[in-house]
């Protein structure tokens, strides 16, 4: 309705014309109502479409990410025969099993290795414990590179020596340390000079295995490092001292339970 016609309507407003006015008003109200209905319909369509698109995007995300993560092949290195594919160091029939969850880039793991590392090594050498190393990799790509290189060292039978040399040369967290070149140089210090080792470091041969170890740890509710289990019992962080660790091992050995049953994820 134009402004002109509205003016006309008001000019012609006489007693006899009220019904025509009312009709006009009614028609206008109907138009407004119709417009409101159309708008509501449009809103419902847009709302449902937007919700549907968000749901669809979620499904697409699931498909895309599933295809991305499933692609790394899992190559399990030699000696990864412990619980949850951990790398075993020590006599297989040792009375006590110690599971260690560490990240090569985790500074507190570095401190643990400095304080308790030699105690662990002694207990391994004396045949008292079998250590199972779960090398986690959540502190950036350098974590993954280091864990891959350590797996390559396990394949060559030098996991523990390499593990120790990495901790002795731990770069600060999140500084992009542990480049592949550094990792092969550190390998040479413990006699890891084979072509197999060097190429496994360079190619990320064990990246799939490293991701699997991380996944297994997450399923076992290990959400931080260092985490240590002695015969399946988690040690409190206050017990992560040479004395505390030795006491836990002795008490586990004394209780005569032998190696704990395999914990289920």
């Amino acid at each position: 309705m134009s402004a002109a016609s509205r003016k006309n309507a008001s000019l012609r407003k006489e007693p006899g014309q009220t019904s025509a006015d009312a009709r006009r008003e009614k028609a206008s109200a109907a138009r407004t109502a119709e417009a409101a209905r159309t708008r509501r319909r449009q809103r419902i369509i847009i709302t449902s479409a937007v919700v549907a698109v968000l749901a669809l995007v979620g499904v697409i995300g699931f498909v895309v990410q599933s295809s991305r993560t499933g692609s790394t092949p899992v190559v399990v290195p030699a000696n990864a025969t412990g619980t949850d594919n951990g790398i075993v160091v020590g006599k297989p029939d040792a009375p006590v099993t110690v599971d260690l969850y560490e990240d090569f880039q985790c500074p507190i793991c570095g401190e643990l290795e400095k304080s308790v590392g030699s105690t662990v090594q002694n207990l391994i050498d004396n045949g008292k414990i079998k250590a199972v190393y779960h090398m986690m990799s959540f502190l950036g790509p350098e974590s993954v590179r280091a864990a891959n290189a350590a797996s390559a060292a396990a394949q060559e039978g030098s996991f523990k020596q390499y593990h120790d040399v990495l901790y002795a040369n731990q770069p600060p967290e999140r500084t992009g340390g542990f480049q592949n070149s550094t990792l092969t140089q550190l390998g040479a210090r413990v006699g890891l000079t084979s072509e197999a080792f060097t190429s496994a470091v360079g190619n990320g041969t064990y990246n799939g295995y490293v991701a699997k170890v991380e996944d297994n740890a997450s399923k076992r509710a290990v959400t931080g490092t260092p985490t240590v289990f002695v015969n399946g019992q988690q040690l409190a962080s206050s017990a992560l001292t040479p004395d505390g660790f030795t006491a836990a091992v002795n008490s586990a050995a004394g209780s005569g339970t032998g190696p704990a049953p395999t914990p289920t994820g």
Partner: protein
Amino acid sequence: MLAQAGLTGPRLARVGPTVLRFGLAALWLAAGILKIGDPQGMVHSVRAFRILPESLVHPVAYAVPFVEIALGLLLLVGLAVRVGAVVSALLLAVYIAAIASAAARGLHIECGCFSAGGNLTADAPTHYAEEIIRDSLLLLASGLLVRWPASAFAIDRLLDRPFQENP
């Protein structure tokens, strides 16, 4: 004079919602983009909360960054702002509940809000209080946008225009 006042009023009223809308859009885009590159990390992050059953951990971890980015784009272009704000508020409410529950159960984890979290080195501090306060403020912003979704530079305004101009 009158016409000018009529224009200035709504325009001024749109400044707040516009700021909130772009702010939330930037937040969701950042949150999604930072997480999308590390699906495995997201899985560990979601699992670390120990809330969802294992069968749902992967679907949720994989879908969330995509939904966050889609939500960010919706808010950015201003399409169905009210719907976007409602979804935004719902997501934030779920995040707050998850963080609060992790804190209550004494879990020692990283929320993974802007990256893949889940793991923390043993002595690293958690930031539950800060995370809950931040998410609550964002929830408040989403709530305001649900109530007043009309904002500038939005596709919604183009869609509404034909009806406003017809008497």
